[in-house]
C-alpha cells in the first residue's frame, strides 16, 4: 500500500521524451499515456485490416460455388483474420486501455517499468508486422499462413505447409507473446506497487482488479504458447518431430499445448472487457457497482477455472468419455461466476438513473450479446452437443457473440467512455448512436443466422459450400450483415476523425464519474496529477470527495 518513490536522480528522467518534437516524441516515448495511445491506434488499424479480410471472406461465401477467391487465398484470409483479431486487435486494445488508464486509476505517475512498457508495445507491433510480411513471401506454398489461427499439426508441419507462412506466423506470435507477457508483468507490478495511499486491493476500481487477474492469467499461459511455437519452429526448421505422428511425435500434443493457452486466452480477452463494463454501467446508472466483492471474486473464479477447461476444444478428438466429462463439467461450472456478473450488472442498473450515452448503449448491448454468446457456450460444454456442433457455423456464431458482442462491444463502450479523457474532446453522441445501432443490427444480421447454418450442418473453414436448402439465403443475409457492420465501423472512424478536431471540450470529468482518472485534466499532463492525487478512503474517491457526509465506507459501515 505504500508509495514507492523513485530515487531523486531518476525521477522525471524517463519522461524526458516530452521535449522531443513530432514523431520522435512518440517513437522514443516511455510515457504510459503515449504508449497506450499507440497501442490503441495500432489495434484499431489492425481492426480495420482484419475487418477487410472478413469482408473478403463474406463476399466469397455470399453465394454457393463462388470463385471470387481461390481456396488457398480463402484459407489465408481466415487464418489471418483470426490471428489478427485475437493477437493484434482485442488483446492490444485491452492492454492499451490498461496501459493508459491503470496508472491514472490507481493514482500513479506512470507504469512501474516505463521502458519495459515501451518495449512491450514495440515488440508486439513488430510481431504484427512480421506476421503480415508473410503475404510478401513467394514460391510454392508461399504467401500468408493457411492453417487456421490454431495451426493444428501436422497440417502446420513442413510436409503440408511448404511455404514460410507458418514460420512467419510462429515468429510473429512469439514477438506478440513476449510483448504481451512483459506488458502483463508491468501491469501487475504497477498495480501491486504504485497505488495511491489508501487504495487497498479491496478498493481497486474493478477495471484494475480485472486487469490484475488477467495479468496473472497471461503470465501463467503465455509461456505455454511460446513454448509450443518454439517446438513447432524446431519441427519445421530443424527437422524435429514433436508434433509429427509418423516420426513418433503427437498431433494431439499440439492441441493440448495450443488450447492450454488458447482457452485462457479467451478469458484474457473477456475479463478486461468485464472490467470496462464494471466501470461504465455504475457511472451511467448513477449507482455504485452492485456486489463489488462478488464481481471481483467471480473474476478470480473464472480465471482459475479457465485453466481447466481447455480440452472442451478437443471433445471430438476421441480421448475417452471420462476425459470429456471432466472438461465438460469444468466448462459448465465457469458459467456460474459469469452469470453472477451478468446479474450484478443488471442489478446495478435497477433503480438507478440510466443515462443512454453511447458508452452505456454499448454496455447494454454487451450485456445482451454476451449473454447470448455465454449461453451458446454452455451448450458447447455439454459434451454430446459439442460432438454435433463443434467445427460448424454454430461455433463461428458463438465465438463472435463472445468476442465481438462481448469484447468489442465493451471496447467500444470503453472508447466512448474514455475518449474525452484521452483526447480532451467528446466523441459526437449523434454519430455515436448511429454507430451503435448499425453495429447492433449489422452484428446480429451477420452472426445470428450462423447459429442456424451450423445446426443445418454447415462446417466452418470452408471456402465454398453446396446449395443445400436454406444455405444460400442465410449466407447471403450474413454477408449483407457484414457490410452493415463495415458501414458502422466507417461511421465510427469518421466520428473519431471529426471529434478529435471539433468535438466539444470535455473538461476533467464530463460523465460525473468517480474513479481517480477523472480527477486530473483531460488529457492528463505528463505527470498525471499536477494537483495531487485526491485522498482515497473508499472505492469511489471522487464520490467521497463530493459527498464527504455520505462517503461510501461511512454508509456501508452504518448499514452494517
Amino acid at each position, binding site marked *: 500500500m505504500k508509495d514507492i518513490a523513485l530515487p531523486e536522480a531518476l525521477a522525471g528522467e524517463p519522461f524526458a521524451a516530452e521535449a522531443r518534437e513530432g514523431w520522435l516524441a512518440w517513437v522514443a516515448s516511455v510515457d504510459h499515456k503515449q504508449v497506450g495511445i499507440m497501442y490503441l491506434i495500432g489495434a484499431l488499424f489492425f481492426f480495420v485490416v482484419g475487418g477487410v479480410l472478413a469482408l473478403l471472406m463474406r463476399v466469397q461465401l455470399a453465394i454457393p460455388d463462388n470463385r471470387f477467391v481461390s481456396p488457398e487465398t480463402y*484459407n489465408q484470409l481466415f487464418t489471418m483474420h483470426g490471428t489478427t483479431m485475437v493477437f493484434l486487435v482485442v488483446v492490444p486494445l485491452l492492454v492499451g486501455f490498461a496501459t493508459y488508464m491503470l496508472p491514472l486509476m490507481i493514482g500513479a505517475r506512470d507504469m512501474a517499468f516505463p521502458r519495459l512498457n515501451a518495449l512491450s508495445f514495440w515488440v508486439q507491433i513488430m510481431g504484427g508486422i512480421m506476421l503480415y510480411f508473410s503475404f510478401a513471401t513467394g514460391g510454392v506454398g508461399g504467401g500468408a499462413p493457411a492453417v487456421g489461427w490454431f495451426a493444428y499439426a501436422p497440417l502446420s508441419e513442413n510436409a503440408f505447409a511448404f511455404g514460410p507462412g507458418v514460420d512467419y506466423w510462429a515468429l510473429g506470435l512469439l514477438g506478440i507473446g513476449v510483448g504481451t507477457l512483459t506488458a502483463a508483468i508491468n501491469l501487475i507490478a504497477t498495480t501491486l506497487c504504485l497505488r495511491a495511499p489508501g487504495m487497498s486491493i479491496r478498493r481497486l476500481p474493478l477495471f484494475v482488479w480485472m486487469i490484475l487477474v488477467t495479468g496473472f492469467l497471461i503470465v501463467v499461459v503465455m509461456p505455454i504458447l511460446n513454448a509450443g511455437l518454439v517446438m513447432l519452429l524446431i519441427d519445421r526448421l530443424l527437422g524435429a518431430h514433436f508434433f509429427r505422428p509418423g516420426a513418433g511425435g503427437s498431433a494431439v500434443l499440439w492441441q493440448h499445448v495450443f488450447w492450454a493457452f488458447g482457452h485462457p486466452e479467451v478469458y484474457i480477452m473477456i475479463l478486461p472487457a468485464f472490467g470496462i463494463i464494471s466501470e461504465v454501467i455504475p457511472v451511467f446508472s448513477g449507482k455504485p457497482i452492485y*456486489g463489488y466483492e462478488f464481481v471481483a471474486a467471480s473474476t478470480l473464479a473464472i480465471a482459475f477455472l479457465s485453466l481447466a477447461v481447455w480440452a472442451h476444444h478437443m471433445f471430438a478428438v476421441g480421448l475417452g468419455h471420462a476425459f470429456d466429462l471432466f472438461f465438460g463439467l469444468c466448462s*459448465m461450472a465457469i458459467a*456460474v461466476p459469469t452469470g453472477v456478473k451478468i446479474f450484478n450488472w443488471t442489478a446495478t442498473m*435497477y*433503480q438507478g438513473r440510466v443515462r443512454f450515452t453511447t458508452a452505456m448503449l454499448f454496455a447494454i448491448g454487451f450485456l*445482451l450479446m454476451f449473454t447470448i454468446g455465454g449461453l451458446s457456450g454452455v451448450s458447447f460444454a455439454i459434451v454430446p452437443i459439442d*460432438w454435433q456442433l463443434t467445427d460448424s457455423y454454430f461455433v463461428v456464431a458463438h465465438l463472435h457473440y463472445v468476442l465481438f458482442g462481448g469484447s468489442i462491444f465493451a471496447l467500444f463502450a470503453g472508447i466512448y467512455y474514455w475518449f474525452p479523457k484521452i483526447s480532451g474532446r467528446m466523441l459526437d453522441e449523434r454519430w455515436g448512436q448511429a454507430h451503435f445501432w448499425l453495429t447492433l443490427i449489422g452484428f446480429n444480421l451477420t452472426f445470428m443466422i450462423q447459429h442456424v447454418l451450423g445446426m443445418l*450442418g454447415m462446417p466452418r473453414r470452408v471456402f465454398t459450400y453446396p446449395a443445400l436448402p436454406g444455405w444460400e439465403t442465410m449466407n447471403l443475409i450474413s454477408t449483407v450483415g457484414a457490410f452493415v457492420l463495415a458501414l458502422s465501423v466507417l461511421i465510427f472512424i469518421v466520428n473519431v476523425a471529426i471529434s478529435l478536431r471539433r468535438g466539444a471540450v470535455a473538461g476533467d470529468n464530463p460523465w460525473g464519474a468517480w474513479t481517480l482518472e477523472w480527477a486530473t485534466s483531460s488529457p492528463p499532463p505528463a505527470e498525471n496529477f499536477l494537483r495531487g492525487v485526491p485522498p482515497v478512503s473508499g472505492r469511489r474517491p471522487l464520490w467521497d470527495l463530493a459527498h464527504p457526509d455520505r462517503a461510501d465506507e461511512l454508509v456501508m459501515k452504518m448499514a452494517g
Partner: protein
Amino acid sequence: MPLGSAVMPGPYSANASTLAPASPQAAAIAHLFVGTLIFLGAILALVSFLVIYAVVRYRDRPGAPEARQVFGSRRLEILWTVLPLVSLAVLAGFMAWTMHVSDPPTGTAKPDIRIIAHQWWWEIVYPRSGVTTANELHIPAGKAELVEFRSADVIHDFWVPELARKIDIVPGHPNRMWLQADRAATYLGVCAEFCGNEHAWMRFLVIAEPPAQFADWLKEQQAGAPPPSTAEAKRGLDLFRDRTCANCHLQSMGPDLSHLATRRTLAAGAIVNTPDNLAAWLRDPDAFKPGSNMPNLKLSDDEVRALVAYLETQK
C-alpha cells in the same frame, strides 16, 4: 456443361440437419440439444427482460432524484450463484447419460468398416469382404456398424449430422464409433476438421440400403468389373496404365476407381458423376476442385474419350 455441386442427385433429402436425426445415437443428441436450447432460451428471455426492464423503467428523466446508493445484497447474490449451479448440475446429469447413449462403448471387436481419410477424399474398406471403395459409404439400414477411423496425412473429421456425433480422424490415434441409420436413405457427410486446401470439397455420401440390397452391392463390388470390350475402352485401360493414373489410383494415393461408374459423385462430392463431367474433370481438375492432388495431365480429347470409355465400364 453441368458444373456445380453434386449433392442434389437422386431421390433423397439433401439435408444435413442436426435436428433431423435418423439414428438412435443422433436422436439422443438432438433431444438433449433441443431441451438445452429451450432451457437456455428461457434464461436468455429472463436476462433480456430484466436488462430491458431496468434500463427502460429506470431511464434518466429530467428532474429525477438521485438514485439510492445500494451496494449489493449478499442474500440475492448467493441466490443467483446457487440457482445456476443447481440447474447446471441437473443438465450435467442429462449430459452424462446422453454421452453413453449417443456414443456407446466400442469394445474390442474387429471393425466392420475401416475409413482412411486422405487430403481430400475418403478411402472406405470392408475388411471382411476385402472391398475397397471411395467417398460413398454403403451400410445396411437398421444395423449398427462398427467403424474404425485412420488418417493417411493430417487431421480430418467424419461428420454425418443426421447419423452420429463428429469424430476426429487423427494420424497416429485411431478412433472407433458405431454408425447406424434407421431408414434406407442417402445421408450427407463432410469433413469437419480443417485439413487444408480442399477441405470444403471433402464430402461424402452415406448410402443406407435394406440389408439384402446392401449384400448384393457388396457382392458386386467383390466381383470386380468386367474387362473392357470395345476398342476405345481397351485403349483407355492402356492409357490408365501408361499415363501414370494407376500410380496413384492403385496405391491408395487417389481413390480406388474399380466400380467408379456405379458412384453418384466424383471428386469427393464436388461434381455429379456423368460421362460429360468425368471428361471435363479429366481435362482440368482444377476447374472443379482447385488445388486438389489430381494433376492436370494435359490429355488430348482423344485420350479423354478413351479414358472415359474405360472408366464407364467400371461397373
